[in-house]
């Protein structure tokens, strides 16, 4: 029991430039070592290291309206499909033998950088409204989105969340993972999940397409989270299709993002209570 409670407390998350309390013992120990460590460099390091810290992981959610500003009587949709143009690459087998707990998952897992289904349907494309919503602001969903670690893979591989919405990262594996988000605009974090069932929650503070997640223990594990300040995003499934529903009438820039094939944009006009179709086609990376 003592170990479990300690481990629960170890799911620490560190943001750039901050230390948690675990570094404090070091400060005391080092400063007792006397004149050897009186060099300016070490002193400056300790000034930073002993300067305080935080285990608070969540960015404060920005104030958001509680009601959807879109009139449902006039709302329209954008639907479409994303295709892969050309011969689909044969997915490479993932070598998971660096962790016996992962190697036991069957050994047939394939990498997910380009997943093409029947008829060239391209999976794992993040499609979203990039521009056209003006100053509309949307409520933050109260339900969290889940990023699961199962079979030493991230499930789903690509997902979306709104700014301020809770993202839960769950460890469903009988092994340990570190959850390392490497955003460009939001705060980077890296947290350990040494026990099955551990859950880490995070809320992103600004829009960013995409935020890569990785596990440094298992370097094949990658996931991408699209963070937006509105709910008009989708990830293509096995049939390559997507739907952005509930859009107010207007003209929008729709972007399709793929982790290796790049980005494409199209402009589409949505009339009241109508559905506009958009098709994307990605060519193999040269």
């Amino acid at each position, binding site marked *: 029991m003592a170990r479990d409670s300690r481990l629960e407390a170890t799911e620490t998350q560190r943001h750039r430039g901050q230390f948690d309390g675990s*570094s404090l013992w070091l400060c005391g120990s080092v400063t007792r070592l006397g004149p050897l*460590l009186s060099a300016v460099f070490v002193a400056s390091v300790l000034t930073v*290291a002993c300067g305080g810290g935080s285990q608070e992981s969540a960015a404060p959610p920005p104030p958001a309206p509680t009601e959807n500003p879109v009139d449902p009587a006039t709302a329209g949709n954008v639907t479409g499909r994303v295709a892969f143009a050309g011969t689909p690459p044969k997915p490479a087998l993932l070598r998971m033998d660096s*962790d016996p707990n992962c190697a036991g998952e069957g050994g047939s897992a394939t990498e997910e950088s380009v997943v093409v289904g029947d008829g060239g349907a391209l999976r794992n494309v993040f499609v979203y409204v990039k521009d056209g919503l003006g100053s509309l602001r949307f409520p933050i969903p109260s339900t969290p989105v889940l990023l699961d670690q199962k079979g030493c893979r991230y499930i789903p591989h690509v997902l979306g969340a709104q700014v301020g919405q809770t993202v839960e990262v769950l460890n469903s594996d009988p092994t340990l993972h*570190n959850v390392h988000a490497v955003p460009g605009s939001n705060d*980077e974090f890296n947290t350990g999940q040494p026990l099955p069932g551990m859950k880490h929650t995070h809320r992103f503070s600004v829009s960013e397409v995409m935020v890569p997640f990785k596990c440094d*223990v298992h*370097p094949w594990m990658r996931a991408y989270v699209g963070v937006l300040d509105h709910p008009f995003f989708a990830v293509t499934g096995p049939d390559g299709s997507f739907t952005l529903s509930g859009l107010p009438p207007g003209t929008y820039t729709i972007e399709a993002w793929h982790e290796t094939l790049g980005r494409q944009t199209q402009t589409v006009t949505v009339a009241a209570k109508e559905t506009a179709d958009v098709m994307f086609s990605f060519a193999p990376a040269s």
Partner: protein
Amino acid sequence: MLHRFGVVVAASTAVLIFAGGLVTSTGSGLSVPDWPTTYGWNMFTFPIDKWVGGIYYEHSHRLIASGVGVLILVLAAWLWRAEPRRWVRRLGYAALAAVVTQGILGGITVLWFLPDPISIAHAGLAQLVFCLTVAIALVTSRGWKRGSTLDDGPLRTVSVATTALIYVQILLGATMRHTGAGLAIPDFPLAFGQLVPPVWTGPIAIHFAHRVGALVVAVFVLATVAHVLSHHRGRPELKRPALLLAAGLVVQITLGALTVLSGKEYIINSLHVVTGALLLVTSLVLALRAHRSRFAADVETVRVAA
């Protein structure tokens, strides 16, 4: 006895540098997100069945580093108690301060998600720790204490220059590794099929600088070796490190080429790191021996103390 212990400490430092090279080469630097704990455990009680994936490299590196830290602590204490030469005792203190600083740098670079300047400083300071332990092992040896009548100004100059250039080259290599420029030029020996890269970006410039640095180092190493073989062929204390330097240069350039051609295979990449460190300390030993007569007064000090 002290000398033998110094040799053990120096050898363990080389092992530590190889282990550190493996951490970067396998991209495992952040596989243990906390420090000085390991997933909340005291690092010395972290269960061995959890040493999986990248954790194996990162956690091993931390444990080896702790062991080397203790060895250097013992070495510094031993020198403090038994070494009559003040400057040698100071070498021990410097090694201890350096290895403690090195540990803190290693922790900070993990907690701050491997910022390039700190990771490069961590790599650079590792070489200085290695140099200090090798220097201590050398100056506590019987051969050093016997003294030397060698007075060769050009050898002193070229050996120091070679040592300094190897260190600069190692810093360039560390910059290349930690900024992800290791494959910025994907072919070898040419660069994009030409002698000079046809396009320039930051990573390409760093990578190319490392290649040019290798050429400069090679010229100085060969000059040093040629000088020793032509003027001091009968002095094994100079000839041995000179020949080692020549052989190490060939191995190191080969490993550098293989690192690129293999797409940074992690064992080759890490061997390239540790061979660079071995070249540095070999050159340092040669330089120190070339300066041995400058330490002549110490012979008397040691004899009196004995």
